[in-house]
């Protein structure tokens, strides 16, 4: 690990100011993406801004037809929350599939979304439910948020404070693990909320999570696995590596989408 300065703000405003002042700074939430990268000397933020002592960034709340989750809420809290399990069980399922129990005790929803690892699970839910990212500055729609691998619409001094998930009538997440890391080789999140039908994929896209509009169109008639029977996703633009070719990932997208639809 390279040396860095360490800051422990107690308010979002302090954190924003620290970010604004320090172009080398990174936010430290759960740390389960950041610290490993720093340990391997693959990343060298000049400053860490620890979010853990800021009050009010954590929590789960049902607000009308939305589930609002604080940015510092741990994966384990989302996975086991009775509120989430009842309102949006697919999201609890997804959170319960991230990493392992100890990782879920630390990792946060805000951290995962801001990091936008192309194989992370949360981006599939954010995109697959059409969530809204609430920041220290504004509200960002899911479709505008993810900007490619490890890139988001966040400005340098902008901090995610909450994520608001609209409740879907039907939703499910299916994940096929990259066997070594436990990240998603392919993960597919499907949802139906009135006329809004979404199929979002993580793990497979060379530039992060994406929606499968062809599937979404086909599902407008009927939200059922049968509607996409025989449909495939082109392998072009998908990741290929030692854990699976682009063709295999393309195949899995269709398989997992059908399974998710059956489970939704």
């Amino acid at each position, binding site marked *: *690990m*390279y*040396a*860095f*300065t*360490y800051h*422990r703000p107690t308010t979002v405003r302090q954190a924003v100011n620290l970010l604004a002042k320090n172009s080398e700074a990174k936010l*430290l939430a759960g*740390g*389960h993406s950041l*610290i*490993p990268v720093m*340990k*391997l000397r693959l990343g060298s933020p000049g400053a*860490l801004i*620890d979010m*853990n002592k800021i009050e009010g960034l954590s929590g789960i709340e049902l607000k009308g037809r939305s589930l609002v989750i604080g940015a510092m809420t741990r994966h384990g809290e989302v996975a*086991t929350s009775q509120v989430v399990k009842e309102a949006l069980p697919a999201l609890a399922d997804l959170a319960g599939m991230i*990493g*392992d*129990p*100890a*990782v879920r*005790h*630390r990792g946060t929803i805000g951290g995962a979304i801001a990091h936008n690892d192309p194989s992370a699970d949360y981006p599939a839910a954010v995109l697959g439910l059409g969530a809204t990212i609430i920041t220290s500055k504004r509200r960002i729609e899911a479709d505008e948020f993810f900007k490619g691998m490890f890139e988001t619409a966040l400005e340098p001094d902008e901090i995610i404070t909450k994520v608001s998930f609209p409740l879907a009538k039907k939703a499910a997440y299916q994940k096929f693990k990259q066997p070594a*890391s*436990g990240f998603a080789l392919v993960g597919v999140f499907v949802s139906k909320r009135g006329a809004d039908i979404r199929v979002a994929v993580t793990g497979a896209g060379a530039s992060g999570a994406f929606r499968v509009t062809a599937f979404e169109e086909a599902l407008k008639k009927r939200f059922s696995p049968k509607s996409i029977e025989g449909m495939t996703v082109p392998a072009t633009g998908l990741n290929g590596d030692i854990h699976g070719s682009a063709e295999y990932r393309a195949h899995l997208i269709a398989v997992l989408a059908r399974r998710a639809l059956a489970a939704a």
Partner: protein
Amino acid sequence: MPAVSMTVNGKAVTADVDIRTLLVQFLRENLRLTGTHVGCDTSQCGACVVHLDGIAVKSCTTLAVQAEGCTVLTIEGLAAPNGPLHPMQEAFREHHGLQCGFCTPGMVMTAVDMVRRKGNELDEKTIRHELDGNLCRCTGYHNIVKAIAAGARAMKGA
């Protein structure tokens, strides 16, 4: 060097540390609590699992300064000093849930946390799933699974 203070195995400790110090380094090198091990550098093997404010975490992926003001429990503090073994420790011995012993402290700490979250009646499937973050190269997990099931039941009476 910043000072860091926390309570480890019931004792208040304070030390000046290099900011880069991980919690596991702090435990092993500053406090000489070498029961917590480091088996990887990608947060996967779980040999370093300790309880931070009662919850299992990977101490290799936590900075020591992040534990400021917290309570840390390591394998050395699981059983009371000079008291009997914790039922989970006893179960690992009884069911031959360890061979080389290197992953064992992390396994035991994970198992105790598993019982906290999942209760005293743990079936094989649950245990195997919950061990996702703990690697063992010796036992094939067979006897670890047995040990955890038995240890969980024994904790009920304890």
